[in-house]
């Protein structure tokens, strides 16, 4: 009650300044994991290899190589492009030598690996002053974004695909906080980037007919980059995860219908775009969090997009039998200790591998197992503030859908997850469309996968549905 009274006046002031909205969400669930990254940057050598994986991007028809093994590249020089849409270019995050072009079945491109130079050389792009940027035309800006590879930061809804250069989105969304477990602290990793962020926003504004929305959490500290920026609509959200998921934010602020397009971009992408136009380089450097219960010293590391995780984890793991995840534990991808970060990931999570049996584990009471449910013996609801150590065990076997109402409790949008998923499984296109498949991508329903009693792979099902819709 008091919280609401105290928040309200602040919200009114904000509203006057930026005309933003305040959306209060109640549904959802914060997963409180042990091993949060301490707010410091580890002194460590740069990783040696970097990799760009086409599988990190949706909506790419087929990648076509532009370099061969052994070629030298600069940061920002092209590696491959999309065969169907050849102005979408995937560029190298660092300068160095292309050491491996890894292909899988049917010669499908899996990853392009680069051995980095000691000092990074940059491909040069056009530099602009702040006043020039104001008058810069959309076409010029688009050209530079596409050529540098910074375009890939723009993700288009529906479907969560790489933005279509021909599209004019009705709005652009930036989620200013990450509510996923162990998420990096945006205040910390974007410190001192205020200027670049502002320039990035100025560039983005050229692309939309509507607003650029920046959404922050009402009870988290707001970075100055976000609070000072001009030309955006600053909205506040309250409530647990998935309040930070941009799909949830779009649903409440500017929902997507069949013929609409909305672009989303992370603050990292906005800053990268700012640097591209001010400094004339494709700067893929980023600060990533290495966190999780199995990390000895969870903290932040400086690296570049697609960096190898090897150096971060050397002598930094409590045990050998772990699962390393590029990204967060709800939507991330399992990788090996020599593998590389995903294109959009700013987090490496390390949790125990869960391939062990547990005697009568389905009935013994426990306070150490986290559950959204309060079913018999699951006592974590007594203490959600505790930091939990969770492993990768599925904790049960797959079963038919049993509607317990739990999906609805973690989905703070007006969508019926079970019905949508069933429509996908039945390949019912009309129902998928009517039930809102345009409004969601995997991360928006990731909590459903976590809480599901029947242990469905909700995110895989959803992506199958999206693929069906895209082909239809």
């Amino acid at each position, binding site marked *: 009650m008091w919280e609401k009274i105290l928040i309200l006046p602040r919200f009114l002031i904000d509203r006057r300044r930026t005309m933003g909205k305040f959306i209060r969400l109640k549904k959802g669930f914060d*997963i409180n994991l042990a091993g949060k990254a301490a707010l410091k940057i580890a002194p460590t050598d740069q990783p040696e290899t970097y990799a760009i994986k086409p599988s990190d991007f949706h909506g790419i028809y087929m990648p076509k190589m532009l370099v061969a093994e052994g070629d030298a590249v600069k940061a920002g020089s092209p590696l491959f492009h999309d065969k169907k849409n050849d102005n979408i270019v995937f560029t190298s995050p660092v300068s160095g030598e292309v050491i491996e072009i890894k292909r899988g079945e049917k010669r499908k491109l899996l990853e392009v690996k680069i051995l980095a130079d000691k000092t990074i050389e940059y491909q040069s792009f056009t530099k602009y002053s702040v006043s020039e940027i104001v008058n810069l035309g959309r076409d010029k800006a688009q050209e530079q974004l596409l050529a540098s590879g910074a375009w890939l930061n723009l993700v288009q809804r529906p479907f969560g695909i790489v933005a279509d250069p021909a599209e004019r989105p009705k709005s652009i969304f930036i989620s200013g906080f990450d509510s996923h477990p162990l998420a990096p602290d945006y205040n910390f990793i974007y410190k001192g980037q205020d200027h670049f962020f502002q320039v990035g926003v100025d560039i983005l504004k050229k692309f939309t007919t509507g607003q650029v929305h920046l959404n922050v959490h009402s009870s988290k500290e707001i970075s100055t980059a976000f609070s000072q920026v001009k030309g955006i609509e600053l909205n506040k959200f309250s409530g647990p995860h998935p309040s930070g998921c941009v799909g949830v934010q779009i649903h409440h602020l500017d*929902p997507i*219908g069949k013929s609409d397009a909305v672009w989303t971009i992370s603050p990292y992408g906005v800053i990268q775009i700012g640097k591209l136009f001010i400094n004339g380089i494709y700067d893929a450097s980023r600060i990533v969090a290495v966190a999780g219960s199995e990390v000895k010293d969870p903290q932040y590391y400086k690296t570049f997009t697609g960096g190898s995780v090897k150096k971060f984890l050397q002598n930094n793991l409590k045990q050998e039998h772990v*699962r390393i995840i590029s990204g967060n*534990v*709800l939507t*991330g*991808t*399992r990788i090996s200790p020599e593998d590389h970060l995903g294109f959009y990931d700013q987090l490496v*999570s390390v*949790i125990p*591998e*869960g*391939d062990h*049996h547990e*005697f*009568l*584990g*389905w*009935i013994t009471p426990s306070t150490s197992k*986290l*559950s*959204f*449910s*309060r*079913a*018999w*013996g*699951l006592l974590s609801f007594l203490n959600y503030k505790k930091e939990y150590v969770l*492993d*990768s*065990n599925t*904790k*049960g*076997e797959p*079963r*038919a859908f*049993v*509607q*317990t109402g*739990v999906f609805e409790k973690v989905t703070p949008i*007006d*969508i*019926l997850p*079970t*019905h949508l998923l069933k429509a996908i499984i039945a390949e019912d296109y009309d129902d998928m469309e*009517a*039930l809102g498949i345009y409004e969601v991508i995997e991360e928006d329903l*990731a909590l459903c*996968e*976590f*809480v*599901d*009693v*029947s*242990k469905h*792979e*909700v*995110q*895989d099902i959803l992506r199958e549905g999206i693929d069906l819709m895209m082909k239809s």
Partner: protein
Amino acid sequence: MKFLRNTLDKVKHDFEKGGKWERYYYVFEALDTFAFVPKTTTGVKGAQIRDAVDMKRLMMTVILAMIPCLLFGIYNVGHQHFLAIGQAAGFGEKIWVGIVQVIPIIIVSYATGLTVEFIFATFRRHPVNEGFLVTGMLIPLVMPPDIPLWQVAIATIFAVVIGKEAFGGTGMNVVNIALTARAFLYFAYPVNIAGEVWTFIPEGAKTVEGYSGATPLAIAAETLTSGQNAVEAFSAFGTGWADNMYTFWNMFMGFMPGSIGETSTLMCLIGAFILIATGVGSWKIIVSVFAGAYGMGLFLNLVGSNPFTLMPAHYHLVVGGLAFGAVFMATDPVTAAQTETGKWFYGFLIGIFTVLVRVFNPAYPEGIMLAILLMNVFAPLIDYFVVSANKKRRLKRATI
């Protein structure tokens, strides 16, 4: 435990594809996963961690919520037995009579039901579902205490085969399985499940003078012909051998004849508390069933002309199986309405229909069973409207 695990691991390959007992894989899997949570891990992409809840734990919670009803039921079977034969008996004696009557029914229900489950799992090649853990307990609780065991077995087999497996197993069935069992007996062997069968009286035993096995609902239905005030008829009942049996509070506590587990509204409410506190049962359904029945009762009080319709509305909540049905049957997540809004309508209509059947259909004194079965069938229709409303909202938003 290590020994058990090693043994299971040793024989596991015999049950896997190509093994000598391949066709019994799901039998093995059921036993294996019953003893140990399997070591399967999450996939490469997506949620890397999972909630600790699973179907087994969910079902276990429901069983736990039924324990108060079961324990009270065991006591009450003995209590009613000694009242009927006019003997004074201690707590222990009553419990003993109850155990002797009730436990065999539970054993028969589980044994036949699980046998059918395992046979189907083997032939239809699907995993054994945990749903029967609950059904196996629900069936005995809605049976009269001296139901012949062979009837329990037949009803269970019918319910599992026709009510569930014919549709593809747990999660696919349309109507509540335990109620299917009871409805089957109701129509196939009415002699043993209707009339004055609700008290255990051994063959040849002499009942006390003035004894009657009529349940409150039967008495209330009789008022239709006798024209007596229902509450007066209740208080007149049992004079001499069971005074004040049918007062409101005694019926709320459950010291009256009836199905084994359904008589005590108090115990059902304890179960409801467990289901709601754990989040396993839908409070919306439970509340709306009671609200529907009470609302309909009140409405009939206002417009009613005969003595049954004039029975005070709150009596409807404590007589018969309304509370048990509301808490344990209507909340079955598979057969109930699946949308949150739909649950309100679903529960409310169950309450309304229960009272309607009771008051206007003297052939079936108890309405809750038929009301739930009816609404089970209509639940998809309710959901259809709720889902359509969701679709329309989205469409409307898009066209503005």
